[in-house]
């Protein structure tokens, strides 16, 4: 043999969420050092990589699909990843991100950019720069096929650790009641 063993390629993606799930990932603390030996991070908001690469083994997706950019990214993730994991409550249920769904997008944007603005109260309209809101923020599995779900707002570092270890051994993590937890 003697070949260089390729480490599993792992990506993490930040859609419509608060980045709390990523913060919880960083809360793996010293376990991150162990993890760094076992995986290659090929795309992540905490790594300076601009485009989502091909042939990713595991992608954790934080956040709901709330705008056109998220939606495009979700499809890219699915196309290029072996396992796609909903990472936290926003990806799994829509959670706080989807609370805006009972209002129309026009009403919502008006409220955010005009009614509540102290200065420059106008609606940004350059959609080459700013993503356009979808009519509804949706859980990830309502947009693409998802292989497993990490729960919680945010998932605990222990849950993330369990999931990563299962995935690295080629198993889809099955979360028993120990980890099934909303909120």
């Amino acid at each position, binding site marked *: 043999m003697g070949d260089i063993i390729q480490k599993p390629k792992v990506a993490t993606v930040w859609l419509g969420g608060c980045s709390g799930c990523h913060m919880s990932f960083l809360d793996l603390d010293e376990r991150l050092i162990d993890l760094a030996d076992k995986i290659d991070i090929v795309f992540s908001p905490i790594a300076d990589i601009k485009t989502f690469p091909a042939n990713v083994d595991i992608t954790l997706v934080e956040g709901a699909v709330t705008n056109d950019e998220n939606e495009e990214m979700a499809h890219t993730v699915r196309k290029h990843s072996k396992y796609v994991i*909903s990472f936290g*409550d926003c990806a*799994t*249920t*829509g*959670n*706080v991100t*989807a*609370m805006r*769904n*009972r209002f129309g997008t026009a009403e919502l944007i008006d409220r955010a950019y005009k009614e509540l603005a102290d200065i420059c109260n106008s609606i940004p309209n350059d959609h080459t720069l700013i993503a356009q809101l979808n009519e*509804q923020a*949706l*859980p990830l*599995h*309502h947009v693409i096929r*998802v292989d497993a*779900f990490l*729960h919680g*707002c945010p998932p605990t570092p222990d849950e993330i650790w369990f999931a990563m270890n299962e995935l690295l051994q080629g198993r889809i993590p099955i*979360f028993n*009641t120990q980890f*099934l*937890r*909303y*909120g």
Partner: protein
Amino acid sequence: MAVKTLTINGEQYSAQEGESILSVARQHNIPIPTLCHLEGLSTVGACRLCVVQIEGIPKLLPACTTKVEEGMVIHTANEKLNKYRRMIVALLASEGNHVCAVCVANNHCELQDLAYEVGLVRVRYPYLFPKKTLDATHKDYVMDHNRCVLCTRCVRVCDEVEGAHVWDVAGRGINCEIITGLDYAWGNSQTCTECGKCVMVCPTGALFEKGVTVSEMEKKKGFLKYIITARQKKEWVSISND
């Protein structure tokens, strides 16, 4: 009263005539999930979470409203039942606006506990995101319809225990809603005694005390057994909120 013998999950049990399947199961620590049922209130069979399988009967029947009969062979837990129960919790989750992360009842919520019990990993149905309202006109309490599962425990406890009958159900199907009086603002109700029983029996964060924030609303239901035992037996038992 006549004694009935029946089989639950392969074991033989005896029960009093007129008893419900749920009552027998509870006496023998056989777990059956429930939501609208609450010991001490009347039984309405609204949520269907307690459905059980009875041999010879093609449809599933709710354990809370089905009376025991001689020779009944009952199954309370199997893959089919769990699938239906999971479906019910998923439908409840999808037809309201349940956002655990920002809910006053987070970690003290019966709907949340049920989701864990039935293993609700995700909801496949489209979420409806209904445009529901919130009534904060009462000086002490709030009714948030977004979190209401229409179990009617509030309606029943107010009518049957407090005797005030402030609450009712209006509308049909998906438009069903709990109302105060003839759909007045709660704060304008002349019948509400401000006792807070409805708040305490509510399984979710739909009814809560003013001033509480995320995860702070713990429901204490021990008063119900205390009051009912006192009324029926003239005995004043100690209050347990377990």
